[in-house]
């Protein structure tokens, strides 16, 4: 084994040593930092957000320490530095090793080799290697021992911070006077929501869907808690369960805001329960987009609806009510169509098509159409959402005396028919006078008719557009009338083309065809706007006080004073503000009770109320949010907007 080999072996030993040392130091640093964080958390319970930073910080710190050790030992990779390292520890070598490395293969190398061979450099490495490994190992051991003897739960809170772990805080058991602080609350939303449970740490209030399972947990139950602990919500008592050192009380979230009172010996604590309502589905019937009156109950009715829900939809359908009859006999038939399961979707569109011909709608009949959707709420529901109802009436000529029926689109159609008839008459006249006109004049007049026919075609196409489109919805489909009108427009195009080349004989059949189609469209189906009831005036002066029957007018009784829940809240807030100064805990409870009522009567003050309660909880001054509450409830007015100069009184 020559000198180079010896140094290489020593280098390998040193490299391994440095690597192991770096690892052990990194582990020790990580453990040390965790220990410090645990101790800090023991001393002052760290917030959840602060604890969430600990693990990343520890990891970065440990990597940093390891990297530092590696960097310090970076010279172990260099043969010359390793040789020098050995030379420092074995003076007997007298730099023979360093020189042998440089002089390999040169004259005198053999002597150097011999010199090196006479000394064992491995023994020189043992102390520094041992030192490099034993010190961090000892530190690591100490840290691990310290971590092991750290109170249960402390490390858990640092390693796995999560909502609801306040009860793991070891100080609680030893230090708490009341077993009601801290508490953790688990909220399990109803199964139908398919939402995950979540935990809250020491909350003042709990917001959850109605029907959610609310479980309040606390520690310190080992010492006879069963007798002294209780939880009361209004008149009902929540069941108290004890498991080891943990007590818990659970029930479902009520439908109205309430305060849960938890008691333990002389201590008590209020927890505001703020129910969140599962709103019923919102249903919008997109088509038909408006109420209409048909001249006949024929054709195709396209139904489209959009449904939305805050949690999840169950199913939806369209409901059609066909009412017929008159006088003393009305009959209503209910039909359901377009049923669709919606599998907990939060938004969907449902569609259906109804052939009106199959419904046997007669004159005067009424068809009510609406979309209905249900959510999956199996606790307080199912929530049912209904769209606006569209009413489709079938025109009844017999009711003209009381209902003034005004044609809507039909008016435009009538005008078009008149115009088309006029164009035909003018074309006939022009054709008849052809022989009396010179060619240029005739062509000019024919061209003019062609242009007018084109204009009329555009007007008809605009009616088609009105029939097939609804503002805000877009295209809603062809109607029998629109089909006829499109055919008429085609005929008009043919006629217009022929007129422009002065071919009146060819144009006129197209013009007549267009006229017939327009008339057919008008007769086929009409859209009507419902008119107003005709009110006949009464001759009041003629009949005034002519009634002869005896009367005895009853006295009036006063109305009750209107409730003023905001005024009551204001008075209570004033009282609570005094209490907050004199008896903080009582004042806090008072504010919680005010919050319960404000959730119903004055939602605009709930946020500052919560802020005040939270401020009290952490020992801060709640005055600013409370003054905000007062100002919102106060509704103070000033001179500019009300009576000012007259002070009242004497």
């Amino acid at each position: 084994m020559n000198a180079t080999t010896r140094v290489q072996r020593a280098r390998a030993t040193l490299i391994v040593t440095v690597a192991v040392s770096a690892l052990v130091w990194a582990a020790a640093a990580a453990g040390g930092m965790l220990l410090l964080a645990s101790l800090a958390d023991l001393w002052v319970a760290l917030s959840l957000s602060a604890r969430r930073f600990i693990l990343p910080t520890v990891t970065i710190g440990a990597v940093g320490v390891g990297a530092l050790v590696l960097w310090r030992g970076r010279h172990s990779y260099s043969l010359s530095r390793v040789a020098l390292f050995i030379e420092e520890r074995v003076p007997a070598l007298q730099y023979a090793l360093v020189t042998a490395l440089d002089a390999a293969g040169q004259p005198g190398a053999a002597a150097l080799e011999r010199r090196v061979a006479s000394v064992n450099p491995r023994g020189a490495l043992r102390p520094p290697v041992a030192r490099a490994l034993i010190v961090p190992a000892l530190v690591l051991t100490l840290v691990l021992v310290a971590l092991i003897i750290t109170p249960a739960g402390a490390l858990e809170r640092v390693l796995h911070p999560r909502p609801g772990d306040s009860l793991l805080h070891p100080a609680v058991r030893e230090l708490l006077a009341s077993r009601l602080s801290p508490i953790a609350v688990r909220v399990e939303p109803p199964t139908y929501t398919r939402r995950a449970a979540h935990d809250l740490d020491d909350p003042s209030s709990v917001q959850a869907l109605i029907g959610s399972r609310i479980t309040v947990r606390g520690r310190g139950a080992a010492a006879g808690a069963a007798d002294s602990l209780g939880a009361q919500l209004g008149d009902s008592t929540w069941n108290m369960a004890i498991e080891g050192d943990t007590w818990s009380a659970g029930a479902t979230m009520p439908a109205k805001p309430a305060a849960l009172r938890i008691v333990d010996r002389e201590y008590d604590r209020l927890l505001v329960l703020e129910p969140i309502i599962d709103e019923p589905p919102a249903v919008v019937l997109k088509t038909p987009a408006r109420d209409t009156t048909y001249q006949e109950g024929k054709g195709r009715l396209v139904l489209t609806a959009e449904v939305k829900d805050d949690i999840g939809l169950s199913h939806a359908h369209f409901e059609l009510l066909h009412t017929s009859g008159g006088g003393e006999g009305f009959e209503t038939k209910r039909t359901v169509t377009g049923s669709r399961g919606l599998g907990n979707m939060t938004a969907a569109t449902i569609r259906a098509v109804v052939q009106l011909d199959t419904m046997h709608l007669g004159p005067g009949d009424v068809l009510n159409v609406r979309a209905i959707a249900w959510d999956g709420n199996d606790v307080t529901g199912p929530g049912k959402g209904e769209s606006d109802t569209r009413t489709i009436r079938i025109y009844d000529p017999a009711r003209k005396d009381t209902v003034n029926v005004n044609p809507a689109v039909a008016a435009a159609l009538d005008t078009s028919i008149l115009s088309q008839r006029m164009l035909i008459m003018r074309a006939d006249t022009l054709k008849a006078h052809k022989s009396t006109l010179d060619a240029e004049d005739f062509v000019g007049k024919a061209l003019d008719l062609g242009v007018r026919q084109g204009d009329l075609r555009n007007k008809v196409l605009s009616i088609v557009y009105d029939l097939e489109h609804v503002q805000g919805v877009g295209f809603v489909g062809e109607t029998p009338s629109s089909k006829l009108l499109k055919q008429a427009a085609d005929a008009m195009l043919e006629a217009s083309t022929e007129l422009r080349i002065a071919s009146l004989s060819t144009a006129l059949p197209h013009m007549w065809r267009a006229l017939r189609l327009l008339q057919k469209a008008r007769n086929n189906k009409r859209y009507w706007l419902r008119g107003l009831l005709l009110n006949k005036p009464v001759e009041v002066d003629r009949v005034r006080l002519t009634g002869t029957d005896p009367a005895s007018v009853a006295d009036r009784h006063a109305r009750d004073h209107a409730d003023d829940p905001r005024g009551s809240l204001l008075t209570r807030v004033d009282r609570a503000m005094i209490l907050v100064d004199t008896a903080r805990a009582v004042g806090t409870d008072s504010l919680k009770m005010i919050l319960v009522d404000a959730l119903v009567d004055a939602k605009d003050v709930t946020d500052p109320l919560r802020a005040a309660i939270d401020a009290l909880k952490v020992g801060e001054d709640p005055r600013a949010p409370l003054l905000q509450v007062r100002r919102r409830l106060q509704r103070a007015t000033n001179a500019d907007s009300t009576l000012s100069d007259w002070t009242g009184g004497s």
Partner: protein
Amino acid sequence: MPRAWLERAAHAVALVLIVWLLVESLLPPAGRVDAADLGSLSEALARWSTVEAPERVQVRVDSGLSPTQRDWLVALGGADTRVGWNGAGLLPIAAVARPIPDPIGATGVWVAAPAGTSVILSDQMGTLDSVRSGAAGVRFVALSAPSAVRVRANPVTARSALVDSLDLKRVLVLGSTGWESKFVVASLEERGWKVDAHLVLSPKGDVVQGDASPLDTARYAAVVALDSTALRWSRKIVQYVRSGGGLVIEGALTATPSFAPLRVGKLGAAIAPATPFDSVPDEPRRALALRPITLGSAAVAVESRDSLVAVASRRVERGRVTVVGYEDTWRWRMGGGDGALQGHREWWSHLVASVADVGRATIEPTSPTDEAPLANLVDRLGPQTPATGVSDTRSGIPHAWLFAIVAALLLLEWTSRRLRGAP
């Protein structure tokens, strides 16, 4: 040589200051004019009242004096010390808190302050509201009915407290059966007023609530006359007002000869509302038809719309009359925005309150008051006096500083001397 001169000079100045301090402490304080500002006033007052008796004191008042400080200065003045004061920027404000004749028991706070002043109202709990003063001042209505209030218009604070409580009597509403009468009665009752009513319906009978026959101030705080059917009680109403009763009357009715003694002014032609309620949510009465009032000599405008008087009042002997130029105020209650119901109740209640004849019982104020700080100051201490000729040494350089200067000079002189080797 110059260094030695400087040392001697320092020594000399130190000695002079020591002598001056000695003389200052030994000289009798009588005949001195002393000054203080608000920061040092409390300390100065104690000193002036115990160890010193300055011939004249001058106080610089940059913000309001507390009532205690003011009274103390007045007492000092009574002990042969001439007290003068001066201050810049002191706002002349006044505030008074009185119970509003309103069943909900609110406290009204009337504040007189220069136009444009920012006025902050507080009660025992803290700030209630702040607003910029208009030309006529500010009125706050505190629904929490505080018994004492503070009004701050920097740098002055006025304090007021309730000194009486009210005994509200009934209100009589007269009119024909119709929407206006229905909703006026309803709004007043919902506000908490005890209402009697006589609503004309038919020769076969009227709709009556309560007994309106003894129309006197012992029974009624106010009468509300809504239309010409009230003419049948005109003589009684005029008598009632003259004897101290309050009357809220619909505009056109005042034009009738029967109500001539109560006339507030002339009524113009009706102006149709130009705007729907939802376009004027903050000024809903702009959406009501109005017959503008031209004020008579004894009348004051209580509410105006643009430049037109909409509500006006006047005194008639011991009573008060308020004329309402708006027509069909029920439309506001029915068609107004979110606050219309509450607003209609509140407005009609204020109208009645503005004329109501109420019984009062005196109560002890719950805290000291200072309703017009500047006026009180002038009243108690006289007008401002200029600060000229005031020796201001005590407040100029305190003795502690003079002592420090002496010590520094002597130390400097000694050090310099020792450094140059002199004994």
